[in-house]
């Protein structure tokens, strides 16, 4: 099944929506704006009636896999059930209709919610304060590094290196570079954990911070975390926690207690706000006392039962986004935390770890595990032993799609060849985990018996494997000016390319 683009279905005579008339006697744009200020050519937007639009999007929706219908074992992404109560809470007019520039005394409920959410997140990760401004995980990482940088500058220190493990998410080095740091890679040892001697050899007075994910991206707890923290702090650097894998820890242990100075959290992973096909998320950052003065402004403060925004923070790094963050996502996360409570969050993390170990045990019958267990909330298998048959991790992923499972994360972390990273989360029942393991068993057996066939999967989806190499070549031809088809957007056939006037 394919669906035409809205542009392709567009009809010049399609009736548009009925909209209010101005109903005031006032001049219009033609009367007041000079020609050079007005738009010369109307935008080429599609013309479709409402029934056609609704069917178009319903058909597109049916072409997606989603947690609502499929098991989504995407490692490091914590694809758990998104409670529908969260959606109802965020849609309440008292939240959705709130203007960010309303007087604070008319937004007390919103400010209280933010204050309470901050308290709850502080309790979960063990920090002093939390900023809710960052819009996503990577945004949070960068915000934390800027705070660390500002703190060190305030002490007259100019440290320009950030250490990142070779198993880290790509956002870590990218966020460090965006803050002006040089990135130094630290190796993982053969057990998949950070190599302490390598870390020690790379720490120097130039080191501003070590960015660490715990459990790491292999799903393993960094057993030597206290020694790591000591080494980092002894040299005067700070320890940064990438919260991608926080779902293993709630109520079990806290990054703050491990010695982390700054901690980012993904509300769209651990705290069930939906991922939306790629956002919006929210990436709050928690900090220990010495970093508090550098938090982005404004912060939310409480005094005598009244809540206010504090803009007067002289040492603040400033603002990292407009207004107060992705407030609608904060409402969802807060609703989840209230419903779960301390007892529920603790059980959620325990179940996440239990489910991962259970699934790991089942899958280990058919796929090689990258490291010894137990794992935390996720595990990494490898498809390397199938490679002599020409079967790769990608093939396993595509074959899973045909069996109505979304695929695990593949080829990450980079330190495991043919990596298959599975994170089941606490909201998948045992029957689903069993079915997934059975599917892996069948796929591996079929791949061994008939390796050629698996290259043709998926067969049951709207499209088969797409040739992204050919697409990249076409884009390149366009970017070099040798073609008028941008590939990155639709263009009516035969229409002259949109070019800026010279």
């Amino acid at each position: 099944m394919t669906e035409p683009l809205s542009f392709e279905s567009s009809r010049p005579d399609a009736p548009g929506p009925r909209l209010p008339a101005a109903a005031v006697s006032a001049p219009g744009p033609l009367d007041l704006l000079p020609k050079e200020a007005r738009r010369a050519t109307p935008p080429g937007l599609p013309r479709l009636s409402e029934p056609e639009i609704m069917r178009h999007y319903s058909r597109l929706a049916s072409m997606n896999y989603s947690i609502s219908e499929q098991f989504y074992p995407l490692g490091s992404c914590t694809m758990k059930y998104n409670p529908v109560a969260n959606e109802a809470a965020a849609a309440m007019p008292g939240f959705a209709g709130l203007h960010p520039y309303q007087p604070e005394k008319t937004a007390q409920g919103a400010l209280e919610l933010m204050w309470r959410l901050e308290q709850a997140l502080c309790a979960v990760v063990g920090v002093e304060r939390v900023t809710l401004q960052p819009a996503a995980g990577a945004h949070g990482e960068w915000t934390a590094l800027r705070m660390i940088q500002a703190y060190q500058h305030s002490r007259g220190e100019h440290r320009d290196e950030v250490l990142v493990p070779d198993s880290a998410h790509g956002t870590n080095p990218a966020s460090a570079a965006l803050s002006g740091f040089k990135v130094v890679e630290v190796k993982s040892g053969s057990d998949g954990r950070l190599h302490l001697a390598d870390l020690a050899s790379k720490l120097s007075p130039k080191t501003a911070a070590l960015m660490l994910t715990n459990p790491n991206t292999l799903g393993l707890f960094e057993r030597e975390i206290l020694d790591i923290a000591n080494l980092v702090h002894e040299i005067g650097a700070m320890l940064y926690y990438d919260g991608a894998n926080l779902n293993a820890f709630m109520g079990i242990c806290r990054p703050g207690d491990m010695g982390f100075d700054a901690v980012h959290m993904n509300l769209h992973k651990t705290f069930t706000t939906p991922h939306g096909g790629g956002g919006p998320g929210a990436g709050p950052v928690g900090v220990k006392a010495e970093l508090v003065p550098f938090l982005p402004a404004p912060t939310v403060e409480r005094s005598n039962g009244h809540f206010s925004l504090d803009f007067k923070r002289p040492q603040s790094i400033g603002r990292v986004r407009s207004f107060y963050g992705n407030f609608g996502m904060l409402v969802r996360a807060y609703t989840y935390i209230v419903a779960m409570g301390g007892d529920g969050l603790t059980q959620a993390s325990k179940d996440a770890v239990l489910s991962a170990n259970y699934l790991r045990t089942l899958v280990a019958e058919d796929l090689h595990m990258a490291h010894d267990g137990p794992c935390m909330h996720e595990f990494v298998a490898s498809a390397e032993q199938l490679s002599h048959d020409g079967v790769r991790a990608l093939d396993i992923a595509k074959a899973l799609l045909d069996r109505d499972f979304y695929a695990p994360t593949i080829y990450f972390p980079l330190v495991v060849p043919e990596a298959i990273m599975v994170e089941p989360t606490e909201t998948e029942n045992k029957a689903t985990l069993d079915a997934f393991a059975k599917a892996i068993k069948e796929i591996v057996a079929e791949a061994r018996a008939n390796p050629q066939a698996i290259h043709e999967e998926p067969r049951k989806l709207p499209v088969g494997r797409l040739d992204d190499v050919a697409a990249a070549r076409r884009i390149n031809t366009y970017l070099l000016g040798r073609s008028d088809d941008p590939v990155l957007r639709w263009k009516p056939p035969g229409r002259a390319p949109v070019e800026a006037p010279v």
Partner: protein
Amino acid sequence: MPYLVHSAEDRASMLATIGVKSMDDLLVDIPESLRLKALNLPDGLSEFETMAHVSSLAAQNRLYPDRLTFRGGGVYRRFIPAAVAAVTSKPEFYTAYTPYQPEASQGTLQAIYEFQTLIAELTALDVSNASLYDGATAVAEAAMMAHIHTERNEVLVAGYLHPEYMDVLRVFSEGRGIKVRKGSEPNAKTAAVIFQQPDFLGLLVDVRGLTEAAHRAGALAIACVDPISLAIVAPPGEYGADIAVGEGQQLGLQPSYGGPHVGFIACRRELVRRLPGRLVGSAEDALGRRGFVLALAAREQHIRREKATSNICTNHSLCALAASVYITYMGPDGLHQIADVSFRRAHALAERLGRLPGWERAFPEREFVSEFPMRVPNAPAMLRKLARKGILGGLNVQRWFRELKGVVTFTCTEVNDPSAIDELMGVLES
């Protein structure tokens, strides 16, 4: 407990399969000294109690009706067709992840491809990305593009850019060692001239002059635009701007106390490789069927790591979907109608406000679209008086710009019907 699925029997049987006695056996890697006794949070509540608590917080916020809201400053009340929420609340869209497996994500990918095309059409530029967080970070990302492209270390901000966008731009720029200067005269160090059209006060600026000045100095021109206004006001591509950015909240998104909304960024062909974030392109499968894939990933953090054009990973896909539904619902005529009605209502209001004793237009020589600055006699008292009558009056911009003493910006859209304007005037005249 809500949202958990295992029974006690399930847990016991899973532990047995793993071959351990208890949950603690799975947590052996965590040093004992780090194990938490208990999470310091109250126990959970039933859904009924949870929602009662959350509703009580919502009830402590004062909700100004759309039609009686005349405050903008970057977030606007507009009519949102029911179609928007009907689409974005489809779980197939809102509970999917970033489309890493294209065959199982064609819905999201095609929707993004359509969004990219819609934004490219609106801005009259060649290519748009899949979305950014908000207007503020979009401005900052555009400045980074200009810095990388021109290898120059300074950006120039001309006129009244949204003060919060300015703040974010400064914080981003400091990290990369880029200087942010205010002014309209670029020189050989200038990577880009950044301007907002209409500006933060709602006034039209000389975008052609600024663009020409930028290009003469070898700098890029970055236009921060209001997407609705583009139905009537010249789009960046028509006056030669290199990059267009903006905030898409007006395209079908609720105010939500400032977010989540959606940033957009579009550019000329020559700059496409510098774009931050996701890009979707069309491709074919072995049977020649068209599909959509994430494209030009070699710019991105998961491939390029510290050499990436940006650190962005999660963007604002679902908000971009809302914007696509909104624009498609409106079509070219509907969007023009919305912009035209807003323009006329705002001009009718400006004319009436200008007749109040002691009130006058600030910068009366400059044209505006649907937001405009008035110089008023005691702004705080006036706004309090309106609030007492349930009206969210204009925005006192002196808070950010000391030189704009007594200046309040008012905005009008299609939701501020003529009787709402009469109500506002009635209170101010009394």
